[in-house]
């Protein structure tokens, strides 16, 4: 079981990113989130979600999902880097293990683009 993302539903609202930051920091912050909306290519309307798991980086592109091994990403940097803190330096997803209701990013996604499977 892990987090799954439907990029076709995502609207880049960043609720997941803030929720994940809250899970890490007990405050509202974005730098420690392991799930982020990548949104730097706005002139092309090309946006999606990146999720860091223990061994993989899941990139939910508009045209579909791509899963990269962390080592391979280090070689080509992937999508990691329109954020202030590179994804590879962040803690991987722990599925909000201490939270009864499951991953908070899934709970707060207003369009149900995040699910478990």
């Amino acid at each position: 079981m892990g987090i799954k993302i439907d990029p076709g539903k995502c609207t880049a609202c960043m609720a997941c990113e803030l929720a994940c930051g809250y899970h890490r920091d007990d405050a509202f912050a974005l730098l420690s989130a392991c799930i982020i909306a990548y949104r730097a290519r706005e002139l092309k309307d090309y946006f999606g979600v990146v999720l860091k798991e223990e061994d993989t980086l899941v990139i939910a592109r508009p045209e579909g999902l791509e899963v990269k091994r962390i080592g391979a990403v280090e070689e080509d940097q992937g999508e990691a880097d329109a954020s202030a803190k590179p994804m590879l330096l962040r803690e991987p997803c722990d599925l909000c293990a201490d939270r009864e209701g499951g991953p908070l990013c899934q709970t707060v996604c207003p369009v149900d683009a995040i699910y478990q499977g």
Partner: protein
Amino acid sequence: MPYLASDKIAVIDLATGSVEELPLSEELLNSRIGGAAVAQALYAEHEEGDPLVLGAGLLTGTLLSGSSLGLISGKSPRTGALAHAPLTLYAGLEIKYSGFDYIVIKGRSAEPVYLWVHDGIADIEPAAEIWNADVWTATQEVRKAMGDELIQTLVAGPAAVAGSPLGQVMINFWASGDRFGLGSALAAKNVKLVALRGMGLIEINDPEAYVAACVGLLGELKSGGWAGKKGLMDLAAGLGEADFAAWLAPLAHRHRAGFNTPFAANTFVFLEGDPKELKEPAAPEPGVLLTDLDAPLSLMKLGLDAKEACAIIRDCAKAGLDAAGLAELAAAGGVKDAAGVRGLMSAGDAPASGPAGPFSPCAPDKAAFADFGQGGPEWWRRRMALAYVFGLDPVFALMSPQIDEAKLIELAEVGAGLSIAPATLEQVLSGLAG
């Protein structure tokens, strides 16, 4: 120290080139709550410097659904009165996390400058090289110079630099809700843009209770009429504009939300390439993000086809010109074709009367997908005042009766530790909405 805040106000005096940092006083929060009401007070305090005030709502940038609102307040070149324009997409978020709760920009710089506000620092930087640049170029140049593609910019484009009353404050590349010519007010201060980046951390009074309340509220919101809908085409249909969807559909690509806003009220249209293609387009600038229903809807009603209309909106976005105001001007002049509309772009004119009241008419004048049990101008102004104080996206505020005054008072207590008496809220909302 207040919660959900950075506890800092920047007062930038362009005439002297100085930046003063002041604490956000509890007295101000207790009497004004946040957002436009605080901006209104800061405007009055610094009125001698004809200030523009940037800020965010009390609950902006949190897990409250729809909490995307930043704002710019100042004397409108179109109305001559204090006006509040919404800054959504991610601009409100970046203001909230910039390390300043409010930024007062007063006086006039002797030379063109831009303001770089980040991590609790506000710098005044020379802008001669980008002064005449279009909005898109100016944003790209500043991001390149800072090496950060996520910097959000509030830009005065060439129309504003030329002093057009339709000079709009733009967000990055796109139209904001500014219908008051505040872009020209910014340019009149010799400020080309404000660059914002927020990497701060916002403490919460009672974190678990606040997040639980937001999650519970989202559960209620998801049963609302907006659920399953997105974009300007659905919004237009929800407002009774039945023809708009078919007109725009051939160009529509994806729909984009502002920060933590459940309804994605922005639609990207492709002017080149296949809008159904989801892979990254080869063209560097394939289209334009429509952030405001009025402009395309008004151009449609003039008789333009969608591609002509959206091309005009794209050119307005580059010029920093209020496309909705342009369309209104064209309608008033009986213009019915694209060439005629384009002919008005450089005229420097504006419709005879500006928006009525202090809030931007970029939000529809009635509820969408929802029944609030009331309506009309008075109700709309109060709803806008509520949104601009607490930090709600003004369009989503018209879809979400679940986010009512009692709920916001509760969230303010739990999240910000601010006890708001009903009488205080009444005073604040009346003071804004009239």
